């Protein structure tokens, strides 16, 4: 039970840090990283929610696991896209 609260607190903290970083900026790279931290917090929250039935001796909620996997794919491709865009902006700045 205690571990559940530890994970929930951790997830909340990560989401909070991420949201603060996105809001505060101002560098674009920092915002991209902050979005990733926020995403990690949300995925941690979802995995922790999936873990709840295990405490009662039941199998973990596999729907949430599937959602996290989908979410990770989305997050990775979105980050790649954002970094590619940022690369183009910085290249143009140099030239």
């Amino acid at each position, binding site marked *: 039970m205690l571990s559940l609260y530890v994970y929930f607190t951790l997830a909340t903290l990560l989401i909070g840090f991420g949201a603060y970083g996105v809001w505060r900026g101002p560098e674009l790279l920092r915002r991209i990283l902050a979005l990733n931290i926020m995403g990690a917090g949300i995925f941690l*929250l*979802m995995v922790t929610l999936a873990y709840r039935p295990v405490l009662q001796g039941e199998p973990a909620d596999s*729907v949430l696991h599937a959602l996290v996997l989908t979410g990770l794919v989305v997050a990775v491709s*979105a980050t790649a*896209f*954002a970094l590619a865009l940022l690369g183009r902006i910085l290249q*143009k700045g140099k030239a």
Partner: protein
Amino acid sequence: MSLALGLVIIPLLAALLMLLWPRLARGLQLAAALLCTILATMLLQLVQQEGSQQLFIGGWNPLLAIRWQADSVTALLLLLSAVLHLLVSGYALAVQQRDKLAAAFWPLSSLLLASLQALWLSRDLFNLYVCLELLGMVAVALVTLSGDKAMRPALHYLLFSLFASLCYLLGVALLYGAYGALDLPLLQGQLQANSLTAAALVLITLGLMLKAAWWPLHLWLPAAHAAAPAPVSALLSALVVKGPLFILVLVWTTLAPAAFLNVAAYAFLVCALGALLLAGVAALRTPYSKTLVAYSTVAQLGYAMLALALMLSFNLPVFTAALWLFVMAHALAKAACFLSIGEMQQTLGVKKVAQLKGASQTMPLAMFAFAVAGGSLIGLPPSGGFLAKWVMLLGLWQAQQYFLLLVLLVATLVSAAYIFRVVVLAFDRAEPTAPDFSPQLLPQWLALLPALAVWAMAFFSMPLLAILQQELS
């Protein structure tokens, strides 16, 4: 429901084939758009005859499966997006060589259509998130087609869009944690009015408002929409901002517990008034013609917000009809606005509103398209915009909201002011801006088509209202 599956799979397949054989891209684009329009018409007929259709993807039971549902509003929206895609593709085909439209436009716009169609059909909170994310990424990729100058607005758009999706996802995770379901019809009526539900709904609403560019969260929209090439701006303003709006309406009409409705209605009302008046004034002040049209999108979304707020607080079916009529009329009119302004910008080689001087002489057809579409945005009869506004005024009269009647009148005057700002200049014949090359007729006609469609909406008001009422009964 195989029709609905076809509506998503055809543009998806077309996009993949376009990437494999770029030479065939233009033909595939037209074929896919035509096929989708035909399928959407058939689906609309089917829904009218047999009621709403459902599909559980993969045949799983409702707790696990993703539910797709085609009711009459969804069928109308499917048809709307297919038709608009067809019209914009036609314009893009006509100007692609002159405007040096990047080859990536074809697969990306097909992907845009596929993700949008999936979004209209889905009734599953997580599936909606995936559709929303796809839609956002494709939209950003389309903005980058303008080249280097569009990179910065595109990245800002992407960051806002990602942040908004994460807010939405967090809200969905909280709801799933509390109620153990993602399927909207299963969740209907299950939500209790406690602080967890409130937090989840606030997160979902904030995320969607940011994505739909609702005032005061619209700041990313004018830069992104104005930076994109004209056919892309038309698609973005006409369709992409309507996706999150659709989810927002779904969430608030099916999920939200009754105790929250009043507070939400007030919040939406304040945002709606802000959008209608302040974004309208911003459109009046901006020096650039494309930014003017983009701000007008923010202002016009205010009508949709107002309709949603009234829907939540009065439970009168007219407001639901008004909301979807606004969405349709605005989509068609805004597409025509962006295409005609884009056409004038290209031909005259100008960006500022003031330089459109004498456009009624040099490019009468494009200016006519802008004026007709603008008439619908103002709400002048006969047009789809007038129909929507009329239905809304009827509702306000029934609900005895005389203050809002007055607000609507002021908002109409503001929109008339920014439309006439352009139109009046166009009729100023002294020293008109000379075109860079002789104006081409075909693109101007194609820009006029959506404007004529919004005109025609007024003549099909009875069947349209009948379809929307069918949904409500």
